[in-house]
């Protein structure tokens, strides 16, 4: 799917741009975007290394284990087929905790490690590596449904643009997030119950 999506974006973009006389802009965009991606990676490299370093300490000190035990019932409910004690549990928990706290930069490395661990789990089960497992689909849909408790960046932008009450949307945002997450949970539960594959 990603192959088609990616090719589609480039083909549509360039052909459409040609008719609009936007060819120079497209050249600029391609060069600028690739440069932007590298700059972004350089920034991310520092933040991510800092975070995974901290997480290593937290793991060794048993903090992640403690937080995981708090979250365990919820994780087991959403991912009943991951064996107990598998490292995927730990990465998923870290990612979800970081997402709830709104630490997006912290959620991504844990999320990537969770996906790798889930990939290994699929290999252990003897399934093909390039097909997403139920756990992967559930994990991503949950992530995309947004789990954030306090949208602090939106509050900051609102106050910057002269809102009388920048934090007015906190309750509303929380309610909307709860609704989208509930829809995600129900949909995934429904899909997983049908025991696909």
């Amino acid at each position, binding site marked *: 799917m990603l192959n088609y999506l990616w090719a589609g974006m480039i083909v549509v973009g360039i052909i459409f741009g040609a008719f609009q006389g936007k060819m120079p802009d497209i050249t600029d965009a391609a060069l600028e975007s690739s440069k932007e991606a590298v700059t972004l990676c350089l920034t991310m490299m520092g933040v991510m290394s800092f975070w995974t370093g901290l997480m290593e300490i937290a793991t060794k000190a048993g903090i992640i284990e403690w937080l995981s035990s708090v979250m365990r019932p919820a994780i087991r409910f959403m991912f009943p087929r991951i064996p107990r004690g598998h490292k995927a549990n730990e990465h998923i928990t870290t990612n979800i905790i970081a997402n709830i706290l709104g630490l997006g930069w912290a959620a991504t490395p844990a999320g990537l490690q969770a996906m790798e661990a889930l990939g290994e789990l699929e290999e252990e089960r003897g399934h093909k590596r390039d097909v997403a497992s139920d756990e992967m689909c559930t994990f991503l849909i949950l992530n*995309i449904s947004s789990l954030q408790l306090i949208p602090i960046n*939106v509050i900051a932008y609102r106050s910057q643009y002269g809102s009388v009450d920048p934090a007015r949307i906190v309750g509303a945002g929380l309610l909307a997030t709860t609704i989208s997450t509930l829809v995600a949970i129900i949909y995934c539960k429904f899909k997983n119950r049908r025991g696909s594959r």
Partner: protein
Amino acid sequence: MKLLMYLTDFIVPVVVLGIVAYGAMEQVKVYDEFIRGAKKGFYTVIRIMPTLIGLMVAVGILRASGFLDLLSGLLGKVTDYIGFPSQLVPLSIVKMFSSSAATGLLLDVFKEYGTDSRIGLIASIMMSCTETIFYTMSVYFMAAKVKKTRYTLTGALLATLAGIMASVFIAGRM
């Protein structure tokens, strides 16, 4: 609300302090472990760098061609009928691809229509209850070397749609 903002300022430093102090108390060799962990993060970024370059170039081209604007304009005619403001169509589409581009559009909405107008409120709530679908999917699935994504996109779109509908509904009652 001041307290909440105050708390948010405290989250990161307190998490750092808690981890390091508790680790030292538990006799963990904190600095050695930090370095070992930092290496993992470093290599993770190196692994996703090609993905990021590929994706950002594709989105950049699509945006420069004017295609995203056309799409928003066309869809806007449809969304007006169901009560969704067409001014927010570009934002909801771009948010699926790129969080930073969406932030740019959000600020534009705030400037044009005001933060506390109906459009401003819907935009604020929408931004706090949705995530970048295509970006998240491509980065995460490429890390797991997955090509067939099965029902992920349907579920993600469904959750996002629910979030957007909730935003419009809630903003109308504020």
